[in-house]
């Protein structure tokens, strides 16, 4: 028996000028999700069920970039992806290119449990969703006014970059030298939500979900649905990453935490610190992780990561900045 632990995130790469009320809203949502997970853990729900449950909540709430509230593609639509992994046995499921599925993480779970495959995408995934009878809606359900505005700003920022006659000022009128994934931080929609859990039996699980990069090209897949990059769970740990997808993929970030624990014998926090410091090169990202011995940890090398963590011994923390 092990003390349970849980961590959630709402994306890394946060505008340092984010209005206080937005920060408060974010912290409240993270707290609510943590409490949902904690309640489930107290009623002995296995880790894999808890991560799905919590990520569903994050998808349903429009605040973060996943499910409803996803960042928009260059065409003004929403295209979502998600993955989930169960530590014991390392079973996994992933989906990309979803446009009508209310809860992508649950479809990823069904890919894992009810299909002969690990990863389904685009119309094949939508067809599977129909067969499975999951909740489906029109694409505009996922679109929020906030994100419509953000897309406009992103397109302007794009044209600003290329048109030297326009002074380098973002739509918000504030000079913003920090960039994340090619966008000024004031416009960037931190990508992805995630949850990692270790239950009383020492079973780890991880799940990640996202609308992806704001103004992305249709068909662009990021790190979130890629096992080993954005999501990973094994006997030793559960990991969910967020940030610049390219850096996370090249660094196989989520797997890396498990690999240094397994092959170098590092403890969880050491592993997280090592990976963030040594495996990101110039990339900006963050991650949350739990270990099979009940530890919880997080790390990020960019400006802010929406996160929360808690463990059975009463520890609880919600934060955004360093």
């Amino acid at each position, binding site marked *: 028996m092990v003390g349970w632990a849980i961590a959630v995130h709402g994306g890394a790469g946060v505008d340092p000028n984010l209005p206080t009320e937005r920060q408060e809203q974010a912290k409240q949502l993270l707290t609510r999700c943590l409490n949902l997970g904690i309640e489930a853990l107290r009623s002995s729900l296995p880790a894999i069920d808890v991560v799905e449950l919590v990520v569903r909540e994050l998808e349903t709430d429009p605040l973060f970039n996943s499910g409803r509230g996803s960042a928009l593609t260059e065409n003004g639509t929403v295209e979502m992806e998600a993955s989930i992994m169960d530590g014991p046995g*390392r*079973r996994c499921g992933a989906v990309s290119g979803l446009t009508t599925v209310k809860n992508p993480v649950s479809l990823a779970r069904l890919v894992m449990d009810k299909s002969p*495959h690990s990863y389904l995408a685009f119309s094949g995934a939508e*067809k599977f969703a129909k067969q499975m009878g999951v909740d489906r809606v029109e694409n505009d359900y996922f679109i929020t006014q906030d994100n419509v505005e953000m897309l406009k700003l992103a397109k302007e920022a794009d044209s600003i970059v290329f048109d030297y006659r326009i002074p380098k000022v973002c739509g918000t009128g504030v000079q913003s030298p920090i960039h994340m994934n090619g966008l000024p931080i004031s416009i960037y929609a931190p990508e992805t939500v995630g949850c990692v859990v270790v239950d009383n039996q020492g079973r780890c699980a991880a799940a990640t979900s996202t609308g992806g990069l704001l103004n992305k*090209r249709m*068909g662009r897949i990021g790190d979130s649905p890629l*096992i*080993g990059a954005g999501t990973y769970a094994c006997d030793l740990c559960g990991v969910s990453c967020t940030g610049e997808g390219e850096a996370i993929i*090249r660094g196989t970030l989520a797997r890396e935490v498990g690999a240094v624990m397994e092959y170098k014998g590092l403890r969880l926090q050491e592993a997280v610190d090592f990976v963030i410091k040594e495996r990101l090169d110039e990339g900006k990202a963050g991650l949350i992780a739990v270990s099979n011995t009940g530890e919880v940890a997080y790390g990020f090398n960019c400006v802010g990561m929406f996160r929360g963590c808690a463990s059975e011994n009463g520890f609880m923390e919600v934060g955004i900045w360093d």
Partner: protein
Amino acid sequence: MGWAIALHGGAGDIPVNLPAERREPREAALRRILQIGVSALNARCSPLDVVELVVCELENSPHFNAGKGSVLTTNGTVEMEACIMDGNSKRCGAVSGVTTVVNPISLARQVMEKTPHIYLAFDGAESFAREQGLKTVDRSHFITPENIERLKQAKEANRVQQDYTQPIKTQDQKEPMDPDGDSKLGTVGCVAVDSLGNLAAATSTGGLVNKMAGRIGDTPIIGAGTYANKLCAVSATGRGEAIIRDTVARDVAAVMEYKGLGLKEAAAYIVHEVTPKGTTGLVAVSATGEIAMPFNTTGMFRASATEDGFMEVAIWESE
């Protein structure tokens, strides 16, 4: 140190009594394509160019499960995926759901070099291909009679299992037994290192016979089917779902780095101790010019060469 190259045309349950008419064309293709890679390395082409070139040839050959000759989805269509990675920079490119592009590996390379992204799929990948002016053809170009037959057999096998009301398939029993087993687990790939230790890996596939439309395997997933860094380059083949779970390509490199194992030991460890029997094969080269080609299936179509004149084409365990 001289250059080294290894390529594969798929690992699987390749019966040792494979009839000559099925074996010889593939051996001949492997030999011919190996020579193309060798010539390119002798001409001092970069490993990245070499692996792309070799995989293009494998895609163009109808004898392997990539490009032309790709296995069919359950709808009788072709959905191809590919991935390429440069060891020094760890830059990479991947594509999935490609249906009309003659060389998916070249499309993956364009994603790596011409976009800020790593991975494009389905309609997005196809429209990008057109923007880049890559060669596209009618979908029927990729379909071969052998694959139409394979799909038919796979569907029949499925039907038989359902008639016998088999219990829910476990993780290891998810694919039906294919009487023509040699192509069920396919993929092509190439890894290369030049005399300066620069590494690159490339993998391409049509996927699994009778796969669900939209199914993505290990090939385009960095760290699963394809990986390269400054230590080694790896291209894996076999049952995609197992290779993804075991992050095969990344783990070969990780074991070298974190446990100090040499290439052959690391590759053998991953294939023989970690992945389930019958699921995985890989080709790998290291920055010091070593080659490893372990597989835990009956066979793996493969070929390798080093600058000092060594050359090998094989299917089953070397004697």
